[in-house]
């Protein structure tokens, strides 16, 4: 039973990976990667890594793939399949050599456990309770460093992708907000006596333009 599940999940993962590389439209590549990730989560479950499998489905196939889909929809467009000439031939050859080399390195390493079904069953292996207690005791420093890394990545992405003024000439932001106000409605000018009941000259127009001008001269055009 586990062998059947393994082959189904492995074929799904590998075909998803080939689809990512071979499909022309980046949108289909993203969908193929989502399929690959779900198949890989099944493989993780077969290896008794239930928390990793759940995190894979939720974080990768959920959040990261949604981010990819948004960016592909924003940027859009297909492309020619591959780069020219040399790399198109050398790329698959390099991949083939890498497969052979990795298989020789890992299967020929002389590790006895490679040809076994793994360590005997330990109750609670890979459950969130075990992983969580490891994260908070033995691996506390990597846990905190990972949080700092995520914060730095979030700030960096915002700085990179934000709208920079001065680089896009076709998008002028309107800085002056003009709100016409009728006379005698308690404006600042009336309170200061600049426009009183006897001064018709100042209230020649019934509407006073309150101008809020953002000081655009102080702003730099981006970092």
């Amino acid at each position, binding site marked *: 039973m586990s062998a059947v599940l393994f082959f189904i999940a492995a074929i799904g993962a590998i075909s998803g990976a080939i689809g*990512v*590389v071979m499909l022309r439209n980046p949108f289909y590549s*993203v969908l193929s990667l989502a399929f*690959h*990730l779900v198949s890989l989560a099944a493989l993780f479950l077969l290896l008794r890594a239930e928390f990793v499998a759940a995190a894979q489905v939720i974080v990768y196939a959920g959040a990261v793939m949604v981010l990819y889909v948004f960016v592909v929809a924003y940027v859009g467009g297909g492309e020619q399949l591959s780069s020219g000439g040399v790399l198109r031939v050398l790329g698959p050859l390099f991949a083939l050599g*890498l497969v052979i080399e990795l298989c020789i390195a890992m299967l020929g390493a002389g590790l006895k456990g490679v040809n076994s079904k793994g360590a005997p069953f330990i109750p609670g292996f*890979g459950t969130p309770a075990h992983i969580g207690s490891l994260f908070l005791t033995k691996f506390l420093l990597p846990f905190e460093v990972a949080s700092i890394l995520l914060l730095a990545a979030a700030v*960096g992405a915002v700085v990179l992708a934000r709208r920079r003024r001065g680089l*896009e000439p076709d998008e002028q932001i309107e800085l002056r907000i003009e709100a016409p106000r009728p006379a005698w409605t308690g404006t600042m000018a009336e309170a200061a006596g600049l426009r009183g009941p006897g001064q018709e000259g100042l209230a020649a127009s019934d509407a006073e333009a309150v101008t809020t001008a953002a000081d655009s001269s102080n702003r730099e055009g981006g970092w």
Partner: protein
Amino acid sequence: MNIGWYLVVSALIFSIGAGGVLIRRNPLVILLCLELMLNGANLALVAFARMWGNEDGQIFALIVMVVAAAEVTVGLGLVVAIYRRRLPIDVDGLNELQG
């Protein structure tokens, strides 16, 4: 199933990702292929964790996922910035690192 089968699958996934990084030209698809390589490494880590009966490999896989998420956010931010500046979405056309 023996652990060796999982290692073979992880080697295949890693190599497909590496070949994709070499073949494709769209930076978005190159990022996807990087994800493939990281996932192949993750599968090997989890397989070794199963082999030794030790959860340290699973912790390592989770940290790799965190690093991959950070890499994706910065990479997609770069792609969006490239698109905003009307530059070609093509790694062969982006050969100058100027501001």
